[in-house]
């Protein structure tokens, strides 16, 4: 081996070390809070008042915290199911409405189209807290207060401006010729949308889904205002009860257990949908 190539090899080695070191360091800062929270949730109740470091249980793993958590409200399962119903319902409704609206805005010509579109986007500027009272009154008039369906409708409403915008852009990116070729091939209406266009706007759909799920899953204020019976509470509302503690004593173990329960579906949804961000899906369609 010559001097030159030896030096080059050594250089590559140190660059590799630095590259991986920086990567590991960054990953550590992202993952540390998860580990601290998840480990702390397995502390026995006797340890729950201890300082946060070290986070791991000192006297063996225990499910005390989860048992305590289950003692709040109507039981952790009930609240998780409430949250899942609301969040998944929000995702489905948002996707259906925004796909149809995005397709319409992208492909059809109708009067006042651009005005309407700007109006929809403009609602993003209204702080949602300011319309909470009217929303509450409307839902009450519809007989939907204290119902998960009512809450779902509110989440869909809040989610739609962004989602319609996303989906219009997604449809705009699909060349018109592909749609025309499909029409000549005999695909019409729903078939055209489902068999040809939907696969092409899947990145947009997955973005919209992830946002809709996370926002509905984590939303607190509207859920607190609208839901009045214990059995209907979603997880964020339950968590404030847990955080408020009983008789002034906060069980930090139960809080960590609740946080852990709340993280799992978010991770799941993200991992499930991110594979649809296939790069270069459109490559080869035209040109």
């Amino acid at each position, binding site marked *: 081996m010559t001097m030159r190539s030896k030096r080059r090899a050594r250089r590559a080695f140190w660059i590799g070390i630095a590259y991986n070191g920086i990567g590991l360091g960054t990953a550590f800062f992202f993952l540390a809070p998860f580990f601290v929270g998840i480990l702390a949730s397995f502390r026995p109740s006797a340890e729950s008042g201890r300082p946060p470091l070290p986070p791991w249980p000192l006297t063996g793993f225990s499910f005390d915290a989860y048992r305590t958590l289950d003692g709040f409200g109507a039981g952790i399962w009930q609240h998780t199911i409430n949250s899942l119903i609301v969040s998944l319902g929000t995702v489905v409704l948002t996707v259906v409405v925004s796909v149809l609206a995005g397709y319409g805005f992208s492909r059809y010509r109708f009067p006042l189209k651009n005005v309407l579109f700007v109006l929809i986007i403009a609602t993003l500027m209204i702080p949602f807290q300011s319309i909470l009272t009217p929303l509450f009154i409307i839902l009450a008039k519809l007989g939907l207060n204290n119902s998960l369906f009512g809450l779902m409708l509110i989440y869909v409403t809040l989610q739609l401006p962004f989602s319609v915008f996303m989906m219009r852009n997604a449809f705009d990116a699909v060349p018109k010729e*592909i749609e025309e070729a499909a*029409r000549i091939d005999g695909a019409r209406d729903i078939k055209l949308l489902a068999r040809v266009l939907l696969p092409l706007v899947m990145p947009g759909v997955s973005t919209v889904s992830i946002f809709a799920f996370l926002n509905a899953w984590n939303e607190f204020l509207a859920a607190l205002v609208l839901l009045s019976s214990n059995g209907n509470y979603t997880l964020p509302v339950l968590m404030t009860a847990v955080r408020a503690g009983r008789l002034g004593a906060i069980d930090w173990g139960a809080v960590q257990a609740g946080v852990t329960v709340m993280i799992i579906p978010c991770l799941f949804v993200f991992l499930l949908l991110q594979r649809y961000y296939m790069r270069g899906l459109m490559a080869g369609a035209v040109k």
Partner: protein
Amino acid sequence: MTIVPTAASVVLADIRKSFGSLEVIHGIDLSVTEGEFVVFVGPSGCGKSTLLRMIAGLEEVTEGEITIKGRDVTDLDPSERGIAMVFQSYALYPHMSVRENLAFSLKMSRTSVAEIDRRVAQASAVLKIDHLLDRRPGQLSGGQRQRVAIGRAIVRKPDVFLFDEPLSNLDAELRVSMRIELARLHRELGNTMIYVTHDQTEAMTLADRIVILRDGRIEQVGTPRQIYEDPANTFVAGFIGSPRMNLLRGRWVGPGRVRVSGVEIDVPLSVAAPPEGSEVEYGIRPEHVEIDRNARSGMPATVEFSEYLGGTRYIYTRLTDGQNLTVEDRTDIAIENGQSISLSRHAGKSLAFDGNGGRIR
């Protein structure tokens, strides 16, 4: 190959198209014979694509009637017209394999699986894409994508194939080989084909009949030979042929005689001759002009410059009255820029056009 005209395949009757208040197609009448290869050619923006898309059913017809195989299809859905279309941009379904791309229309019409397999195999054999069936469009070259797009049209067994500039995204070499392939395909399938292009070479080589369009109107319809040798007006004369036909200002001085640049030239006698002394245009193609070695009787001109292309040479000259005239020359006479020469014309190849550009014949 000779086409035996059997029946009208596509008939356009006074077709008009407006986008908003702007009319872009101004009343087109055309009858395409069964099995004919018709090429729409014209400058960009003249309405070729719009006309083709109206036949396909992708664009609504503002006025007029379209008949395919004797059936009025003016208001039918594209899939029910018995047509297939190949787009300039290929427009393949990127999320499907080549096989699925080919099979899609058959699936939509609920064809049996066995029949789908048979037709896909047949089409891919004709186009030599059998080995690509399991790839995605993204993994294909431009030429291969174009074949798949054509294959997608073939499996439908349409009455009429529609092509919208299918070769313009290919590089020059591939374009020539695909052009030959298309001609072969037409021979083998024998379907009616309507082909849009702005490339006159494609039009001349592929067409049984050429339709020349300008600004939403038909300028002339005819075989490539008719269009080339017998153009109806100065637009057609100038549009087809490279280098362009020479069109020179002149004056009608008597029956069948035109004076150009001080020289009197014989043109075909005409029944509808213009009044004596009126302005006309005189047309002659570059290959019908010759450099006169010795005769002093020809048209005097000065060589401005020349282009040497191997087999031929284009000589750009200036006449005594300042007009330009191009000569296609196949001799190897030594020529220098600035040299004075004398030009003679092939007998019987001269054309005359009246003041509005219409042919005098």
